[in-house]
């Protein structure tokens, strides 16, 4: 994938258009229920397609390794990230724990964009990588909370905890992703065909419109950020690079194909802005949402879409040959 190619693709160009409109303070806005619906659609579509692909190719050995690697990455990534945020970033432990949880978890849209770009480059990831995506959503929340609480000595009340774990494990995004994956596996390619016009044919066009909205949201989020320092902004650029390299390296090491290794890298590099912020509002209310959303959504997300994904794909190709 050449470094110019992404900037010729409607998917990325719509993202840039959204970012431009927000920078120019245009009043362009996608209605909130539509944005929500598009994100649900993308999850259902990617889940279904992953499941159908697994049904077509059978359960490959790679799945097990990818799943284990995904779990380990999500659990462990928050630890060094927490250290960086406390040290170089000068954050208190509550905010550092909250931000670290975001970076250990994943962004579905970043993943979807990456699969699209990897497909264009001729190296699509395996269908089972959707399972890795789903597995990486939540472990980081555990680690992030432990880090925040160990450091601050706080202990959560029991009722709070139970509500939290329910929220985290049965989070709508996770349920829809995993559910659609299972439906795809059960239905298989033949029964998928009648719904393919919506979930396959519509996929790239909807992704364009959704990324238009994400461009708007990311820039608006960044502009309203108050607590963001130069050090933290720098980390929001460096952390995804480091995590992305780690993810690709692990992917190659466990023998994934180029596309799947790149996808694992993108998952590691991406930061959540759906499940984790909601969990943090519940469990770490003293952490500043303005800060963690500015970092994950305002900086890391656009960085990954525009630079991170092609970079990680390039490294995956180098390691894969």
């Amino acid at each position: 994938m050449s470094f110019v190619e992404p900037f010729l693709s409607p998917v990325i160009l719509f993202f840039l258009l959204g970012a431009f409109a927000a920078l120019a303070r245009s009043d362009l806005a996608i209605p909130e229920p539509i944005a929500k619906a598009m994100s649900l659609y993308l999850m259902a579509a990617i889940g279904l397609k992953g499941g159908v692909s697994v049904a077509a190719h059978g359960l490959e050995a790679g799945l097990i390794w990818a799943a284990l690697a995904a779990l380990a990455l999500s659990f462990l990534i928050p630890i060094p990230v927490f250290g960086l945020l406390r040290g170089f970033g000068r954050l208190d432990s509550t905010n550092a724990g909250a931000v670290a949880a975001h970076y250990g978890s994943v962004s579905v849209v970043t993943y979807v964009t990456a699969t699209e770009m990897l497909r264009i480059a001729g190296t699509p990831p395996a269908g089972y990588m959707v399972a890795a995506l789903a597995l990486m959503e939540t472990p980081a929340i555990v680690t992030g909370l432990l880090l925040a609480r160990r450091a601050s000595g706080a202990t959560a009340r029991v009722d709070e905890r139970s509500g939290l774990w329910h929220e985290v494990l049965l989070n709508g995004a996770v349920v829809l992703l995993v559910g659609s994956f299972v439906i795809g596996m059960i239905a298989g390619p033949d029964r998928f065909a009648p719904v393919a016009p919506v979930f396959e044919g519509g996929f790239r066009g909807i992704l364009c419109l959704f990324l238009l909205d994400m461009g708007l949201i990311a820039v608006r989020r960044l502009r309203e950020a108050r607590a963001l320092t130069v050090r933290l902004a720098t980390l929001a650029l460096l952390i995804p690079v480091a995590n992305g390299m780690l993810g690709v390296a692990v992917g190659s090491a466990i023998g994934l194909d180029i596309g799947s290794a790149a996808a694992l890298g993108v998952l590691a590099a991406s930061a959540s802005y759906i499940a984790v912020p909601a969990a943090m509002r519940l469990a770490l209310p003293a952490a500043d949402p303005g800060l963690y959303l500015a970092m994950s959504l305002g900086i890391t997300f656009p960085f990954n879409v525009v630079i991170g994904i092609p970079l990680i794909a390039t490294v995956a190709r180098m390691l894969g040959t």
Partner: protein
Amino acid sequence: MTDTVERVRVEILVDQPLLRRVEQIARDVGINGYTLLPSLGGLGASGPWRDDQLSGAQAKILFLTITSRTRAERLTDTLSDLLDSHGLLLVISRVEVVRGAKFE
């Protein structure tokens, strides 16, 4: 004119992820009627927000109940931890209602 009686109106601006808990607490202190209203955005000590979050992490909902002064006080007391930890906005005002028995 139709008779009216005095009650209080309690409004709480609740972060969406906390809504279930606030509803539960309200039922626990004996409040048997409330209405939920949507909000679009705002400004506070923690900066501006818009309901543009796909997660609803920053969406806020206005919990509104018409109740007796006693129940309102019980609600405020029971909620006070949550009000502090999550910085929720709680406003009380006096209203008149017809058919007061509905709003104990």
